[in-house]
């Protein structure tokens, strides 16, 4: 390969983002045909990743990247092994078809450009997620997929249901992302590496760590929310509010598999522990059964598919954590098969919806002759999903049963779950592939006919791939399945299952599954009615719980805000000063750090004593003052006296500033007094006065003690010496104080003057608000 492959890979990773930038312009200029042009971006990426196939099949790992912040060990780096390459191919390959499909599906929509832009943004994020090597990069892309998913679910933002679903998906997956971040920090702390490529080669250390369980739970929090595992599954069916291309792409083929990807990626380092082999199959199994039961209950074909997707994700998680030989291989095969048939199936349903205007499985009939290509694609997808011979789904199912079937009770239990789940998915698949297409044609909202090529190309290609993958299973295993399974299990694995049925336990289980599936399909309406009754008896699900949780959160935050922000300045001031007094007084008392009694100064010069006396007189005047204006001016006296004391002790800069600050404080406080028309006298009741006095004395005492304590310790001359020595030499200034302000610590000063500026603006705004109110009230009085 050419020498600049890393640079090309880098460009390819950003290709979808570039497509996203140009999508609105191109759509505006060329209409829906621009989708074909935009599809070139993912298609080129797909071809580029295909170029790595033989290298990865030979067991090599492709890495590359650029240093970002080397001092923090952060880099933008990618890492392609069998696992990430398969995902990258699925994302870019299905992505190409989805972009073309969106061109047809969203044709004429005023926001088609925006839609394609979001799809491509998501593609870039998802691609980044699966090829990321560095933890931080993985996390950033992970959250980016949540955000783009939010944008796509809420694409039709005029409808309240879409907005709710978008927000729900964001809260659940984004919250899971935070869990994942914590988990990644744990991983980094335990192992000391920040890159997945190094992590997967860590043999020991992680499983023995005392923080293993915490790390596992946090990582599972991320993976389970993203991959819609029970009890976080509820966002996925709601996400079907999005346009169908989104459901096909994000919510079946790619994004929801990010959680499975993460688990597969961590399997070599975190798997094969009791916690792993209990938690994953348990939650995966529940999700599988819950998903299939809920799917049977639905009549909307899109929702039926959504729930079977949830079930399939459960099956994948269960297999990833099962721990038996062949389990990982089964998961790998099923993942690829599922992406193909489910992505295709969603597009079929979208096409039917688009052309017939309905997607109710009990209403639609007889579309076979009107939509022959769509029907063929649906049939092929159903055959693969049902796991019939000659299809990729069959290979996956055989491998699943080969992995699960064993004599021990645990294996029997999970085999049972898999059989029930697969049988129900079989029934759902054929319900969608047969019911709408056979029988006498129904009266539909639109007169159905075959859609344009953009609408049937995607499902047809995916459906045929499901067939070809199985027919040429040797090739598929060599380039895709085996390298991926090797990456997941952490050792070399060769998959050699073919589509020729061979006698054995798996085949028996397959026959049972198909028999059960046919039975349920035959009695589907009865099964649906049964499910509706069962679910009604179960009561409300976690979807309602989510609503309660969110509204509770809002109520709680309102209550907290009301409590800490009552809107009364006195409360804020009192709270601030009480807290200040506590911080100053409590630690010295608790830790026994009170300063000793200071020695009485031996020689006090008369002028020093005089200014000290003036300061005291100032304070006394403040306390005795009859009105507030006098008090403010008296406070100024005290301030000036302190400024002079600074001067006497050799701090001219400080004293200078103190003078000016005191002057301006008096001027501004006096202006505030007149401007805000406060009553000149102090009308606080005696109790309040006493309480405020206590707070004031406590603060003063605290500061006094702090100063005494600081003076007690021997003074460290290090900084003084440094600045004295270098102020003139480096910064060409003799005034050390000023040199520190403008040169040595200049950036601090820059921040401070920005604060001064913002404070000025804030004060100005406050005064104007008041002035505006005053103006309004004056006008009202005038009337």
């Amino acid at each position, binding site marked *: 390969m050419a020498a600049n492959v890393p640079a090309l890979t880098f460009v390819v990773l950003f290709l979808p983002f570039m497509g996203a930038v140009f999508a609105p312009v191109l759509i505006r200029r060329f209409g829906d045909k621009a989708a074909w042009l935009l599809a070139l971006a993912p298609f080129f990426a797909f071809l580029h990743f295909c170029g790595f196939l033989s290298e990865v099949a030979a067991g090599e790992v492709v890495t590359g990247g650029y240093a970002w912040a080397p001092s923090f060990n952060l880099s933008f780096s990618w890492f392609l092994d069998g696992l990430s390459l398969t995902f990258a191919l699925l994302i870019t390959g299905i992505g190409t078809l989805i972009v073309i499909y969106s061109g047809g599906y969203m044709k004429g929509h005023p926001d088609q450009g925006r839609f394609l832009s979001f799809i491509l943004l998501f593609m870039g994020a998802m691609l980044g997620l699966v090829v990321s090597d560095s933890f931080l990069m993985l996390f950033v892309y992970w959250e980016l997929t949540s955000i783009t998913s939010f944008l796509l679910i809420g694409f039709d933002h005029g409808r309240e249901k879409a907005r709710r679903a978008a927000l729900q998906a964001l809260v659940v997956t984004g919250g899971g992302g935070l869990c994942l971040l914590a988990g990644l920090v744990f991983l980094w702390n335990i192992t000391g590496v920040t890159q997945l490529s190094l992590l997967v080669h860590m043999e020991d250390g992680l499983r023995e760590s005392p923080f293993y369980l915490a790390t596992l739970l946090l990582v599972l929090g991320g993976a389970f929310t993203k991959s819609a595992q029970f009890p976080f599954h509820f966002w996925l069916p709601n996400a079907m509010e999005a346009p169908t291309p989104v459901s096909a792409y994000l919510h079946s083929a790619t994004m929801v598999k990010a959680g499975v990807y993460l688990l597969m990626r961590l399997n070599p380092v975190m798997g094969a522990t009791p916690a792993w082999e209990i938690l994953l199959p348990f939650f995966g199994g529940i999700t599988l059964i819950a998903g299939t039961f809920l799917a049977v209950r639905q009549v909307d074909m899109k929702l039926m598919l959504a729930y079977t997707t949830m079930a399939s994700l459960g099956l994948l998680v269960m297999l990833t954590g099962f721990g038996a030989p062949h389990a990982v291989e089964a998961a790998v095969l099923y993942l690829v098969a599922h992406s193909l048939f489910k992505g295709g199936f969603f597009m079929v349903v979208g096409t039917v919806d688009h052309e017939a205007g309905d997607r109710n499985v009990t209403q639609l009939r007889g579309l076979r002759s009107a939509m022959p290509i769509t029907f063929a694609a649906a049939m092929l997808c159903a055959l693969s999903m049902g796991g019939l011979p000659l299809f990729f789904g069959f290979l996956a199912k055989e491998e699943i049963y080969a992995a699960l079937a064993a004599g021990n009770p645990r294996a029997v239990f999970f085999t049972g779950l898999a059989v029930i789940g697969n049988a129900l998915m079989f029934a759902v698949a054929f319900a969608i592939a047969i019911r709408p297409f056979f029988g006498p044609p129904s009266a539909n909202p639109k007169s159905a006919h075959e859609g344009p090529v953009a609408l049937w190309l995607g499902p047809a290609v995916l459906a045929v791939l499901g067939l070809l993958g199985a027919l040429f299973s040797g090739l598929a295993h060599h380039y895709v399945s085996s390298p991926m399974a090797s990456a997941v299990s952490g050792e070399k694995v060769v998959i050699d299952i073919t589509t020729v049925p061979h006698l054995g336990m798996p085949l028996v289980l397959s026959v049972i599954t198909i028999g059960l599936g046919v039975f349920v399909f035959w009695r589907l309406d009865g099964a649906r009615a049964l499910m509706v009754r069962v679910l009604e008896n179960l009561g409300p699900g976690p979807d309602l719980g989510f609503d309660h949780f969110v509204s509770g959160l809002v109520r709680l935050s309102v209550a907290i805000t009301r409590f800490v922000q009552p809107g009364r300045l006195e409360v804020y001031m009192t709270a601030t000063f009480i807290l200040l007094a506590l911080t100053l007084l409590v630690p010295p008392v608790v830790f026994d750090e009170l300063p000793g009694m200071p020695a009485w100064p031996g020689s006090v010069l008369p002028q020093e004593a005089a200014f000290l006396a003036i300061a005291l007189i100032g304070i006394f005047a403040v306390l005795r003052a009859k009105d507030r204006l006098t008090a403010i001016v008296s406070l100024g006296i005290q301030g000036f006296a302190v400024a002079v004391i600074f001067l006497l002790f050799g701090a*001219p*800069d400080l004293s*200078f*500033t103190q003078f*000016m*600050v005191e*002057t*301006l404080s008096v*001027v*501004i406080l006096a*202006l*505030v007094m007149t*401007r805000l028309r406060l009553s000149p006298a102090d009308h606080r009741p005696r109790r309040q006065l006493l309480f405020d006095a206590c707070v004031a004395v406590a603060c003063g005492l605290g500061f006094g003690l702090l100063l005494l304590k600081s003076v007690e310790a021997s003074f460290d001359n290090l900084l003084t010496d440094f600045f004295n020595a270098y102020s003139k030499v480096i*910064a*060409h*200034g*003799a*005034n050390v*104080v*000023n*040199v520190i*302000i*403008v*040169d040595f610590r*200049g*950036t601090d*000063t*820059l921040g401070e*003057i*920005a604060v*001064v*500026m913002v*404070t*000025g*603006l804030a*004060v*100005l705004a406050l*005064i*104007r608000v*008041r*002035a*505006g109110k*005053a*103006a309004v009230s*004056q*006008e009202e009085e005038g009337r």
Partner: protein
Amino acid sequence: MNTLILRTVAPVLTALMLLFSIFVLLRGHNEPGGGFIGGLIAASALAIYGIAFGVAAVRRAIRFHPMAIAGAGLFISTLSGLISIFFGVPFMTGLWIYPVFFDVEVPLATVISFDLGVYLVVLGAITSIALALEQEPGPETGGEEG
């Protein structure tokens, strides 16, 4: 505050204080002083002028809105820090030049322009607060002070 004494003295006092504030600003690098103190002195000067002649007179005298002066100050300071980029040294590194005017070497530096920015920010921010407070609230001035 319309006392005759204040109205007579104020212009002279303000002029002297402004001059002094610039003196303090410039000598700050070697003697007590600097942008912060200079800005405070200048703000007090304008406050005195405002007490004697009213807000409108001060606004006319300084021509620009005080917040614009503060903004310009922040801009100058930031720019002084950013100049170092063109010399390949870290942000905020002090850069010096020594041009000779009339046979006298005058050291100039980005730290001086930085300090000038500090001066303007302090002057502008405090003056705008003081002026806004001094202004009589009323319907005709309420929205016009910007």
